[in-house]
């Protein structure tokens, strides 16, 4: 019984949890609820993934209304993988959140923080799981509104402006998305994604479909912060509370990438594959611009969180590059990097969140010499940093390896070279921090710093350990990503 209703539970549990948190009003109780819900999520997601791997795509008719009339939750390898990623990150953040939230959020708002956090989680999982175009929009709004509120809770007054800008940009993105869906609905008469895909045959060259494609691409690109639509992201990440930054950086953009994959390959596969349309080429150019442009900006940042935010924009470029390469190895690389980057950025932001917890600042001058005061945290940061560079033995290497292979298979030598060359830029920005943290005299701000409480340290170390573990054992990550890539590529044949 439970096994059959897993898709609904995946979304409903956090929703009820959020309501419960809002009623409880006490920070510590709300945290308890959020912890239980978050810890349950990965089990549900893992259950779904196992079902999918065993017996193929799951179709779950919500409320008993048969698709395509009713809303369908449709889980295949691609979104099962995303669901697992989002819920794993959600689960690992919660133990970490307690100390950090107590420090950064006023006591009377802590319960609200957890309520909004669970709403955001619910929205993200809903976007990933549903097979209905309009339902995606609803969940997109749920998660986005929650995200704006989360960011606005940051202590820094600039958080408010950042949240406002994100609100405006996010709303534009969502509007574009819904316009795109509306155009597709007018052409096909259905909102069910699978149904839509089958009805698009023969009309893929009509103006309305092409316009829909453009609106969807720009709308979703805004959400996933594809260069040059990333400008909302650095401030949002830099000034949000640490927990919110970790969560959003590791999950929100990833779910948006999933939407892009879904539309490009499953729904509009025939349009995407059409020879005369330069979609892949445009994505390629924008990805490269992100990999180089945003990463170079990261070099010159003197706020570590903002630097990591720009690095995120650059890393998203690698993920979308996998889409642009459009062959098995390349797409596998893109999808596996989606997972790997969530692990890496999660660990980096967690380590920096611990620094903020201890010294109340993440300015480059203030973190100088911190390696002597917080060796474990900064050691974790260094390892995750090596991973983002793509050092062998870490997950970053696996992603880049597949991308390079994909480029070679396509015969694009220059691209393979650019991929590895761009990692040099990350060497500079990560190296700069490592050098400041380990080889400079201890700054005044860092004088009295010590390691954070275990509740923060252990989740950080777990995530860092995962970046090493999945660098060696790739059957779970690259294996499933490979299956997902195969499934997606079947859509454009």
């Amino acid at each position: 019984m439970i096994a059959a209703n897993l898709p609904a539970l995946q979304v409903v549990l956090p929703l009820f949890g959020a309501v419960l948190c809002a009623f409880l009003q006490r920070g510590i109780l709300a945290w308890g609820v959020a912890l239980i819900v978050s810890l349950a999520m990965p089990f549900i997601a893992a259950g779904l993934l196992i079902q999918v791997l065993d017996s193929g795509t799951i179709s779950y008719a919500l409320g008993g209304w048969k698709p395509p009339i009713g809303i369908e939750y449709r889980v295949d390898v691609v979104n099962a993988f995303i669901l697992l990623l989002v819920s794993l990150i959600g689960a690992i953040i919660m133990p970490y959140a307690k100390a950090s939230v107590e420090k950064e959020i006023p006591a009377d708002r802590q319960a609200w923080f957890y309520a909004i956090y669970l709403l955001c989680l619910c929205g993200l999982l809903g976007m990933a799981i549903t097979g209905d175009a309009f339902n995606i929009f609803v969940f997109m709004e749920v998660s986005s509104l929650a995200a704006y509120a989360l960011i606005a809770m940051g202590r820094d007054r600039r958080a408010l402006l950042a949240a406002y800008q994100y609100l405006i940009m996010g709303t534009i993105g969502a509007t574009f998305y819904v316009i795109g869906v509306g155009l597709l609905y007018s052409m096909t008469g259905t909102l069910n994604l699978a149904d839509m895909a089958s009805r698009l045959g023969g009309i893929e060259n009509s103006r309305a479909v092409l316009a829909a494609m453009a609106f969807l691409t720009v709308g979703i690109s805004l959400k996933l912060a594809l260069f040059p639509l990333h400008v909302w992201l650095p401030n949002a990440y830099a000034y949000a509370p640490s927990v919110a930054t970790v969560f959003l950086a590791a999950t929100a953009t990833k779910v948006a990438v999933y939407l892009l994959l879904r539309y490009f390959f499953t729904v509009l596969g025939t349009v995407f594959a059409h020879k005369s349309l330069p979609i892949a080429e445009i994505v390629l150019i924008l990805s490269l611009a992100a990999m180089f442009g945003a990463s170079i900006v990261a070099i010159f940042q003197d706020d570590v969180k903002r630097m990591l935010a720009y690095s995120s924009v650059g890393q998203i470029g690698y993920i979308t590059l996998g889409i642009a390469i459009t062959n098995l190895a390349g797409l596998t690389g893109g999808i596996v990097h989606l997972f790997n980057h969530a692990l890496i950025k999660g660990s980096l932001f967690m380590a920096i969140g611990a620094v903020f917890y201890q010294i109340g600042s993440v300015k480059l001058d203030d973190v100088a010499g911190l390696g002597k005061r917080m060796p474990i945290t900064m050691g974790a940061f260094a390892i995750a940093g090596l991973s983002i560079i793509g050092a062998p033995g870490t997950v970053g290497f696996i992603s880049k390896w597949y991308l390079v292979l994909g480029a070679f298979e396509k015969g694009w030598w220059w691209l393979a070279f650019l991929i590895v060359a761009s990692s040099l830029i990350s060497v500079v920005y990560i190296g700069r921090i490592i050098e400041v943290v380990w080889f400079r005299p201890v700054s005044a701000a860092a004088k009295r710093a010590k390691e954070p409480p275990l509740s923060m340290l252990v989740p950080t170390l777990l995530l860092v350990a995962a970046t090493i573990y999945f660098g060696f054992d790739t059957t779970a990550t690259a294996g499933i990503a490979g299956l997902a890539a195969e499934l997606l590529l079947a859509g454009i044949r």
Partner: protein
Amino acid sequence: MIASMPFPPALVLILAGLLLPFARGNLRSVLLLGAPLVTLWLVWTVPDGAVWSFQFLGYQITPLEGDALSRLFASIFAIMAFGGGLFALNQDNTIELAAAFFYAGSAVGVSLSGDLISVFVYWEFMAVGSTIVIWSGGLLAQKAGMRYAAIHLLGGVLLMAGVAGEIAQTGSTTFEAMTLNSFPRYLILAGFIINAGAPPLSAWLPDAYPEASWSGMVFLSAFTTKTAVYVLIRGFPGEEILIFIGVYMIFYGIIYAILENDMRRILAYSIVNQVGFMVTGIGIGTVMTLNGAAAHAFTHIIYKALLLMSAGSVFYMTGKRKCTDLGGLFRTMPITATCGIIGALSISSFPLTSGFISKSLISQGAADEHLMLIWMLLAAASAGVFLHAGIKFPWFVFFQKDSGMRPKEPPWNMRAAMIFFSFLCIALGVYPDPLYAILPFEVDYVPYTTSHVVFQLQLLLFSGLAFFLLLGQLKRTLTITLDFDWFYRGIGKVLASEFDLKGAKVWAVFAERIYRTVRRFTQEIYRHHGPQGILARTWPTGSMAFWTTLLLGAYLIAYYL
């Protein structure tokens, strides 16, 4: 895995490196001295052929594979780690030693790797370890360390692109001799020779190494360039372009070393010079010269480490590096001076020292191939080596004028390390058979023939004579108290005219122009990407929305067209 599989030697040093930061007192000393010896023992338990092999991402990975060449390099790396560990026992900065052992272990790993992916992985480990060793040199070393890291990661990037391409093309990961006939192979070669200190990027070596601490540079001198020699011997034997690269490196090293005043930079340039001999040997590619390159790498690691230990001891006791500040130290540092002289004689290939029995394999190989020009250049370069490293270093540091300093001998462990390496230099010079026996190919060569010894002695004596003649001439100018720094530039100019170095001036102008262009380029980047640049500042919300609309328009146009 089989039960009888030997434990991978590389991992012993790497694990020791990872444990070192937590070790104190005796345990630290045991790790520093014991781990290299265990590694050395394990190297000789590795049989021929693939020992440890598994599948990863669908490729055959062989991190442990033995043959004569691999064991030769792995052994000397282990011996070097032992000597370096002994020398650095009193180095308080444990992070440096930990990084150095990690670095040494990765070098052993490269030399025992059977496939390209393992080579690449260990290669990157080396870059990380060595960068930390340089950074441990203190505040002044930070920028140099960053430049060093950038160059080496560039090398890593070329190598990774090359390895991926090679595997995509051939489907095989095996690391074996390749002919230069495809783009990925050029990339692999480029990645390799960057680490060897080849042009046009040779400058990373004398830029970064001397900034390391007194003990750090001893480690640095041994591993990076010599693993590059190893991978070139295995991957590109007989590749003709290497002859030219090698000869260039030989003369680059000599000329800059003669112009230099800092004793540790002199020795850094001479690393490039010595590796040049090896690269030339690999380029010629006969059994004789490949043996020579391998043997020369072996002996070079020992005598260069010895020279740097001697220089490091002086630096450690006096805190000075410039030749102009030093001099006359033989009075109070006789052991350091003697060991330095033995190292200097070895690097000059003086008969009865290790350099003589290894370098002669290369020049003999060139003669056998009737490469007259190369042979003459090598002979001329031998004289040049004697000038810059053989005489200049010991003369200006230990003799010449009296600097007035009376430093004591360094601590016992540093002396012991120097004496141990001096012993090896002489022992191999007198009795080369054990070294010849472990070379990759059978050796059919006797170094001590009358004509060879006489030729070498004449060469050395005449270049020594030239040094002192020039010195005498310049000493007169010294009496009218010219700036002492000019003195070296002076000698340089005299020699430069001899080598007809007008080209160098052209080069300097050219380099200056490139430097300016790069500077302009970085300023331009900073303008756009710096904190106040268009890409980094916070945009007004309105212009964000405007750009979104613009992009939508662009998409629509692109799709409709």
